[in-house]
């Protein structure tokens, strides 16, 4: 006995996106098994859908999740404005890692632009986090970049839910002009939320101006592909990238 026509094919027939030959085959199969009423039932369900799930709120929610209401600004929950921490972290970075001194850029020649990530410890000095370091929801992170000769830069992150956050420049638009002289802390610290799996930060740099939205779109693409944990950003020629992956625990 032939099993009844799969719902999958009936749905595609109802939606009109089966190739014509296959549509005829599926319709004939439905008719032979007395199943044309299934199409009517789908029509009735479709008609009731808009009232139960109105497009306005649903599309608003979909766009919100997709981050299409403009570049996702760090929310009050995720980013906290802590000038003292920023200053402390910047100082720690400057002193501990890359002391700012005249001529430092000359010594950086040959070094690639890169990000540094520090975690604030209660009552302690910021802790440098290497790539792959475990982090938790609530951790307060301070990002710093080392321009290493690059002139313009954008910093974004993607989390395990696929949310893309623009960290630099905060307001979007043209990539930030990078300061030289060692590690430069971003203006605000960043508090991790409960997104699972990972948080991956990207520094994208160029010698000529470019638009931050180029980087945001590239980050969204790898997030949509489910590849944000490992894939590089697909960027136009002339832009360099460096990524730091932190693994979420608990």
């Amino acid at each position: 006995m032939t099993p009844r026509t799969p719902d999958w094919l009936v749905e595609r027939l109802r939606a009109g996106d089966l190739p014509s030959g296959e549509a005829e085959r599926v319709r004939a199969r439905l008719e032979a098994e007395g199943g044309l009423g299934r199409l009517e039932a789908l029509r009735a369900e479709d008609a009731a859908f808009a009232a139960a799930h109105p497009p306005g709120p649903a599309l608003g929610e979909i766009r919100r999740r997709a981050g299409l209401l403009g570049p996702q600004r760090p929310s009050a929950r995720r980013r906290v404005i802590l000038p003292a921490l920023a200053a402390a972290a910047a100082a720690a970075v400057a002193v501990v890692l890359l002391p700012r001194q005249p001529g430092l850029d000359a010594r950086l020649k040959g070094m690639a632009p890169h990000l540094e990530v520090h975690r604030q410890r209660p009552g302690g000095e910021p802790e440098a986090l290497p790539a792959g370091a475990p982090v938790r929801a609530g951790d307060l992170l301070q990002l710093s970049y080392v321009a290493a000769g690059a002139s313009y830069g954008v910093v974004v992150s993607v989390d395990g839910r696929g949310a893309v956050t623009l960290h630099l420049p905060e307001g979007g638009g043209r990539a930030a002009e990078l300061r030289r002289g060692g590690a430069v802390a971003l203006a605000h610290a960043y508090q991790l939320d409960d997104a699972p799996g990972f948080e991956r930060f990207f520094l994208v740099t160029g010698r000529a101006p470019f638009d931050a939205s180029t980087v945001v779109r590239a980050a969204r693409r790898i997030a949509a592909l489910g590849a944000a944990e490992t894939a590089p950003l697909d960027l136009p020629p002339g832009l360099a990238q460096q990524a730091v992956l932190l693994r979420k625990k608990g």
Partner: protein
Amino acid sequence: MAIDVEAYYRDLGPMVLRRCRRLLRDEEKAVDAMHDTFVNLLRADDRLVDRAPASLLLQIATRVCLNRLRTERRRPEDPDEEALLAIAAADEPEARSISRFVLQDLLGREPESTRTMAVLHFLDGLTLEEVGREVGLTAEAVRKRLRKLRARVAERERADVLPELTP
């Protein structure tokens, strides 16, 4: 290709919701998964190739639901659900080398998820040839992939959780 998500939602939202209900068996979770299906569509809108939208959305919805089921600890209520949960929990036979997400197939770069193909064949009842048409593979290629997945499921669960492959 710009996606007119509003038109897609109005026309195909009911179909997506039915798909999510069937796989998740929970109205609230199904509505949430429907939203996520359209989110995935939107996020890749400028990379999508022009292809059958109902098939596209059904495949995305299937993947979204499988990913949710994978993280749930649910006791199956019947053999169908037992098979579905086993598929959701299965490792992709080619996990290191193939796409882990349906949209990569839609970009024409990677084959569709074996887990999605398993749902189409074992749960939805599509023949190997019909599955192949959905994902752009030959029936034989689908058969090989599903054999591997079935063997892995049998190693970890019970040998008969997934039925024999049918033509």
